[in-house]
C-alpha cells in the first residue's frame, strides 16, 4: 500500500493529458494571485484594518495551493510521464518540486493562521500577509526553477520580503537589528552567489542546468580552479539560504529577533527552499564533477559543512538561556542533518536516491516540528510570560494541551521514536550508513544525543518544574495560534505511521533526478 503504487494506479490519466501544460505550475500561480489579491484589497480599502480578512484570504490561498500540489502529487503529474518543463526549460515541474511546494504551502498556511492572533490590531497587517505570500511564492518558484537564472531570481524574490518581514516590528530594536544583520549577510551572500553563477557561466557558457551538466561532462581540464570556485560559491549561496556554516551567522539573531511566526516561517520554509534548490542544482548539473579529473569533490565539502553545522548548531544550543535562541541554534543543527542528504552522494552510487529522499522526508517532518515549536513560542510571547527557561517553568499547569504539543515537538526534534521525528532522522542515518558514510551518521547520532539534552530542558521546564508565579498573566487562549500549534503536533504524530508515504514519494522523486 506504499504511496508509489497508489500513484501508479491513478496515473492512468495524468492530469496533464486532460489540462493544458501550463497548468503544471498552478500552485505557483495561485500563490501569486493571492499575493496580488491582498495588495488590491489593501489598495481598495486602505484605512480599514482588515487583519482577519487578510488572514482568511492568505490562508485560503495557501491551502488551495497545497490542495492542488497534493492533488498533482497523488495523480503523478511530473512523476509518471517524466518532468514537465516550461518557459524553454527555465521551469520544471517534477516530484521534488511538488513535494517541496507542499512543504512551503503547509508551513505558510500554519504561519498565516498563527499570525492572525499575533497581529491582532496591527496597523498594516496587509503588507505582512502580502509579503508572506510573496515570500512563499518565491520559494515555490525556487522549487520549480530549472536554470541558474530562475534560481537566482526566485532566491532573491524569496529573500527580499523576508528581510522586511523580520524587521516588521519597526519600533522594536531587536527586530530592527536582526533584520539589518539578516539583510546585510543576505546581500553579501547573494553577491557571492551571483559571482559563483558567473564563474559557472564562464566555464560552461550556459545557465540551464542540463546545459551546465553537458558543459561539465567533458571534464574541467584547464579551468578546474575557476569551475571549483564557482561551484563552491554557489554552494555558499545555498548555505546562506539553508543557514549552514559558514553562512549561518545571520540565523541566531534573525530567528530570535523576528516575530515568532516569521522565525517559524524562515527556519522551516526558507531552509527547505534552500535545500530544494541545492538538491536540484547539484544533482542535475554538478554530478559529473564528482568523478571528473581533476575532481571537484563537492560532496566531501558538503560533508565537512554538515559535520561542522551539526556540531556548532547543537553545541551552541546546549547552553542557551533563551528558549527561542536555543531553537534557532537547533534549527541550524537540523540543517546539518539535512546536509547529509547532499554529503552522502557518490558518483553513480546506487543509494543516491535513497539518501536524498530521506533528507527530503526529514525536511518535511522537520518543517512541521519546527514550525510548531516556534508557534508555541509565539503563543508564550503572546501571553508575555517571558523568554528564558525559568519563565517557562510549570506552563503545563496553565496550558496542558499546548505543552503536550511542545513536548511532542521537542522529543521528535530530538529523534525519539515516540513521534514522527524518529523515523525521518533514523531513515537519514540508515541511508547515510548504507551509502558508506557511517562517520557522518555517527556525528549525527552524537549531536542528536546532545540535542536530546537541551530539548528535554524545555520539556523539563514545562512539565517537571513548578510555576514561579509569572503565569497568572495568562488569561485568554489565542484561538488561531492554538489551532496552528495543535495541528502541527497532530501532523508530527501522524507522520510516524504515515512516514512511509512521505518517504516513498521523496525517494521516487529523488531517484527520478538521478535517473
Amino acid at each position, binding site marked *: 500500500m506504499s504511496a508509489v503504487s497508489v500513484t501508479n494506479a491513478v496515473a492512468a490519466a495524468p492530469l496533464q493529458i486532460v489540462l493544458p501544460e501550463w497548468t503544471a505550475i498552478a500552485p505557483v500561480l495561485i500563490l*501569486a494571485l493571492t499575493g*496580488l489579491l491582498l*495588495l488590491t484589497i489593501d489598495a481598495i480599502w486602505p484605512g480599514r*484594518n482588515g487583519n482577519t480578512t487578510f488572514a482568511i484570504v492568505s490562508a485560503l490561498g495557501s491551502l488551495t495551493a497545497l490542495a492542488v500540489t497534493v492533488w498533482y502529487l497523488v495523480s503523478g503529474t511530473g512523476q509518471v510521464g517524466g518532468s514537465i518543463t*516550461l*518557459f*524553454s*526549460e*527555465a521551469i520544471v515541474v517534477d516530484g521534488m518540486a511538488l513535494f517541496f511546494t507542499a512543504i512551503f504551502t503547509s508551513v505558510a498556511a500554519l504561519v498565516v493562521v498563527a499570525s492572525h492572533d499575533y497581529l*491582532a*490590531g*496591527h*496597523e498594516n497587517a496587509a*503588507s505582512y500577509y*502580502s*509579503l508572506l505570500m*510573496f515570500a512563499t*511564492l*518565491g520559494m515555490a*518558484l525556487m522549487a520549480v*526553477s530549472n*536554470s541558474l*537564472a*530562475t534560481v537566482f*531570481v*526566485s532566491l532573491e*524574490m524569496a529573500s*527580499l*520580503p523576508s*528581510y*522586511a518581514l523580520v*524587521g516588521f*516590528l*519597526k*519600533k*522594536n*530594536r*531587536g*527586530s530592527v537589528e*536582526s533584520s539589518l544583520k539578516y539583510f546585510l549577510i543576505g546581500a553579501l551572500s547573494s553577491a557571492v552567489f551571483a559571482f559563483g553563477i558567473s564563474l559557472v557561466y564562464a566555464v560552461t557558457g550556459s545557465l*540551464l542546468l542540463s546545459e551546465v551538466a553537458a558543459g561539465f561532462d567533458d571534464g574541467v581540464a*584547464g*579551468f578546474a*580552479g*575557476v569551475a*571549483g*570556485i564557482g561551484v563552491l560559491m554557489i554552494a555558499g549561496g545555498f548555505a546562506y539560504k539553508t543557514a549552514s556554516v559558514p553562512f549561518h551567522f545571520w540565523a541566531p539573531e534573525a530567528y*530570535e*529577533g523576528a*516575530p*515568532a511566526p516569521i*522565525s517559524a516561517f524562515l527556519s522551516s520554509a526558507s531552509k527547505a527552499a534552500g535545500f530544494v534548490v541545492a538538491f536540484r542544482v547539484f544533482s542535475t548539473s554538478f554530478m559529473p564533477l564528482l568523478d571528473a579529473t581533476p575532481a571537484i569533490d563537492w560532496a566531501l565539502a558538503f560533508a565537512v559543512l554538515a559535520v561542522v553545522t551539526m556540531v556548532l548548531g547543537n553545541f551552541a544550543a546546549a547552553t542557551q*538561556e*533563551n528558549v527561542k*535562541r536555543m531553537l534557532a541554534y537547533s534549527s541550524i543543527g537540523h540543517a546539518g542533518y539535512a546536509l547529509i542528504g547532499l554529503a552522502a552522494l557518490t558518483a553513480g552510487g546506487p543509494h543516491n536516491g535513497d539518501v536524498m529522499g530521506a533528507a527530503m522526508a526529514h525536511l518535511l517532518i522537520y518543517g512541521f516540528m519546527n514550525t510548531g515549536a516556534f508557534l508555541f513560542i509565539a503563543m508564550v*510571547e*503572546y501571553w*508575555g510570560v517571558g*523568554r528564558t527557561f525559568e519563565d517557562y517553568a510549570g506552563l503545563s499547569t496553565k496550558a496542558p494541551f499546548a505543552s503536550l504539543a511542545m513536548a511532542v515537538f521537542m522529543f521528535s526534534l530530538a529523534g525519539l521514536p515516540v513521534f514522527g521525528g524518529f523515523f525521518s532522522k533514523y531513515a537519514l542515518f540508515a541511508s547515510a550508513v548504507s551509502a558508506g558514510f557511517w562517520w557522518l551518521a555517527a556525528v549525527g547520532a552524537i549531536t542528536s544525543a546532545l540535542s536530546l539534552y537541551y530539548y528535554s530542558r524545555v520539556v523539563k521546564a514545562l512539565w517537571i518544574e513548578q510555576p514561579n508565579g509569572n503565569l497568572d*498573566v495568562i488569561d485568554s487562549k489565542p484561538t488561531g495560534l492554538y489551532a496552528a500549534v495543535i495541528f502541527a503536533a497532530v501532523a508530527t504524530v501522524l507522520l510516524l505511521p504515515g512516514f512511509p508515504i512521505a518517504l516513498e514519494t521523496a525517494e521516487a522523486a529523488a531517484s527520478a533526478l538521478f535517473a
Partner: protein
Amino acid sequence: MTTDETGNSGSSLVPGLAAVALFVVMAVAIVQSSFGTAVAFPEGESIVAHIGYAMFDLQGDMGTIASEGFLAAFLIIAIGLDVAVDGALFLAKREEEGSIVALLTDGGRELLDTAEATTAATAEEASMETDTPDSTDTTEGSR
C-alpha cells in the same frame, strides 16, 4: 547625510586581509586557467534586439544569436520588484498619528512590565536583554 562621516570611521583594516586572501586564491586559480578562443557575435546583428528576443523566449524563431529564454525570470523579476517596492514602502512609512502598536512582545526586546522607564542598559551587559526606549503601549489593539 550622517554627521559622523569624518575620514576613516571604519574599524581597523585587519579584516580586510581576508578579502585580499580571497583575491589571491582566486587570482592563482584564474591565472592557471586556460580558455579557448572567443566566439564573437555575428556582425551586423543588433545585439539589443536579440536581447529583447531572448527576454521573451523569442530567440528561437526571431533572433539568430543563440541564447536562453528568460521569460520566466522576467515574470518573476516583475513581481519581485513590485514586492521590493511594497516592502521598502512599508519599512519607510512613518506612522504619524497613532504609534504603531508594537506587539506585546517580540523576539528579543520586550520586558514583561513595560511601565518601568528603561534607562539605556550598559552595552556589554551579559544577557541579551536590552532596554527599549520606545513607549509602545501594550493595549490590546481594538482599533
